[in-house]
């Protein structure tokens, strides 16, 4: 009897101790993204839905404490993002922030999170700068990055004999990063870059750049831009009859972009993605749940928010605390394997190295159901497409 009482008391103490490990008695996740601007279709409300699905999957609780979700519009401005995040960390009890469709906003929030000992998991902030000199131990760039995207597409095309490349690049950090990363891969694989044009962001009319690219006679016209710029460039390349002789290769394409372009114009294009809803049973099952709520199939960015949230919560559970360093240590120990990310390992520099997909856009006749847009050409092993750890990243040393 005495022993039983003692053990109950001990168990109670242990439970209290475990609970005390969760700060403020709540695990709070923030989705910070573009809810109204040019990236609101590829992340936006869909990312919030994705995070909710992850929280539901955990039963809304972790370590016996409730999991809460907050979200806000960072308007693609680093200063707005920084102010929102500071408020969330100081008064809002937020433990982890994810999404960031504009990489500059992620970079701004990373600095603050480091000071406040909180975690940042960019799902759609893809610039490699996040892993370079700006890297820190509390950041995990979850879905992918510009290097892995460029490497997947560029390598496949160079191997097919498309050796000469012309870049049409959005004239800001992200575009430059994409062009630089792709050029590295092209040169390494024996191709060469014959020219490039930098267009103002956002672009609208690409006629001039396309005509220059056409005149260059390059095998491939690579688009180092995103969203509506990519969509307009592809549309106009069709208009000028460029796609008949040259390959147009968008280096970052979300399924929402292909949805807007339409298969008629996008067919045959190669692209790399971290996630495609129709990849296998698990991805289809999860995407179906997402579709029921959002009436669209998830983009890789949105799927990444789900995976980041789920992995974070699992790591909190396993670590027995929401203390940032302990959770990050736990995340690095885990193999990430869910409906979205396969064979994922979180590296010291914050890159989640995992399998990527090389996809080709189907023709209208090959597409059987709505959102049936891609053929999966190859599963690219993470080790083959992710860059080596940057020497500039001090954490990794």
């Amino acid at each position, binding site marked *: 009897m005495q022993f039983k009482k003692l053990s109950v008391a001990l168990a109670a103490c242990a439970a209290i101790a475990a609970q005390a490990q969760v700060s403020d008695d709540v695990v709070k996740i923030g989705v910070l993204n573009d809810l*109204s*601007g*040019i*990236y*609101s*279709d*590829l992340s936006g409300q869909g990312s919030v839905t994705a995070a909710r699905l992850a929280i539901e999957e955990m039963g809304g609780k972790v370590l016996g404490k409730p999991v809460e979700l907050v979200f806000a519009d960072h308007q693609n401005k680093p200063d707005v993002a920084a102010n929102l995040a500071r408020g969330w960390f100081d008064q809002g009890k937020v433990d982890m922030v994810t999404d960031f469709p504009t990489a500059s906003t992620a970079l701004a929030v990373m600095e603050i999170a480091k000071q406040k000992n909180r975690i940042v998991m960019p799902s759609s902030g893809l610039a490699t700068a996040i892993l370079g000199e700006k890297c820190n131990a509390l950041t995990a760039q979850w879905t992918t990055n510009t290097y892995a995207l460029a490497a997947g597409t560029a390598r496949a095309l160079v191997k097919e004999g498309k050796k000469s490349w012309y870049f049409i690049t959005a*004239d800001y950090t992200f575009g430059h990063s994409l062009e630089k990363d792709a050029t590295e891969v092209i040169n390494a694989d024996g191709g060469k870059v014959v020219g490039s*044009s*930098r*267009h*103002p962001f*956002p672009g*609208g*009319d690409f*006629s*001039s*750049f396309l*005509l*220059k690219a056409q*005149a260059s006679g390059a095998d491939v016209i690579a688009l180092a831009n995103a*969203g*509506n710029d990519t*969509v*307009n460039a592809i*549309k*106009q390349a069709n*208009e*000028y*009859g460029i796609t008949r002789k040259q390959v147009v290769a968008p280096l970052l394409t979300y399924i*929402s*972009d292909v*949805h*807007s*372009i*339409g298969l008629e*114009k996008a067919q045959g294009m190669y692209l790399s993605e971290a996630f495609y809803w129709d990849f296998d049973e698990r991805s289809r099952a999860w995407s179906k749940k997402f579709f029921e709520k959002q009436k669209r199939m998830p983009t890789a960015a949105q799927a990444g928010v789900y995976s980041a949230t789920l992995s974070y919560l699992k790591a909190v559970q396993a670590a027995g605390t929401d203390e940032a360093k302990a959770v990050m240590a736990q995340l690095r120990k885990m193999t990430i394997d869910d409906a979205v990310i396969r064979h994922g390992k979180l590296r010291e520099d914050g890159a989640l190295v995992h399998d990527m997909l090389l996809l080709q856009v189907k023709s209208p006749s090959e597409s059987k159901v709505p959102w049936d847009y891609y053929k999966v050409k190859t599963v690219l092993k993470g080790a083959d497409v992710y860059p080596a750890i940057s020497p500039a990243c001090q954490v990794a040393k």
Partner: protein
Amino acid sequence: MFDIPMQSLMAQLLVGLINGCFYAVLSMGLAIIFGLLNIINFAHGAQFMVAAFLAWIGFTQLPMLLGPEFKLNFWAMLVVAPLIVGALGVLLEKTLLKRLYHLDHLYGLLLTFGVALILEGVFRHFYGISGSSYDPPALLQGGVDLGFMFMPIYRGFVVVASLLICAVTWYLFEKTKLGALLRAGTENPKLLQAFGVNIPLMITLTYGFGVALAGIAGVLAAPIMQITPLMGANLLNIVFAVVVIGGLGSIMGAILTGLALGLLEGLTKVFYAEGSTVVVFVIMAVVLLMRPAGMFGKEK
């Protein structure tokens, strides 16, 4: 010459001319509205966008909702969409804008800016931001090889149609009796009213006409640009610069400056692409320093 082949230069000039046509039609609408109503119509871009969406809705959404016999093709929409957008403009003028004429320009600007934000917000809510594609009509698909470039037939059509619209509008306002009345109405409305001319009606219809011009440009743009809620906002900056350079209120100024700046922008893209968005504003600054009323504007 700067290592640019002649062929490429010709192609870029042609592309510049095509863009210039859009600038001309849009800025002409703005110039008319400013010239006769003294309203700086910030909703012009949104009205342009609404017409593009109407073209797309008539072609793809209407048949899905009401059955295939309700499909409205490009040609029908080239007439219907500007009429609808123009009618919405008339409604706006009748209910809100007319209350502002006795106030400073700024109020009209703020009101139309608000209307633009609302229109953009509504379309974003229903159709998202990535936009939709719209193909040119079957008759105008494909292209011709001009030797120095592959010219999409549709773009050629846009040039012809725009120049025609500009010519007709200019004739209407500068050479007909109606045009003379309109211009007299802005100079001395009280005197004209004493002669029995219905000035408020004239102003309403003029605003409707200016907005309908944005509507025509919108339908013409639909097969070229991705149809998104922001398509007008992106273009409006340049169009405003065109109107300022041409001289606020001058129709001929708007047409000629629109075309010229399109060409200039095309040339900048050949020699220094990074400067192509800035060049228009540099010209604007220079013109404003030398001729504050614009190239063709009259000092008031």
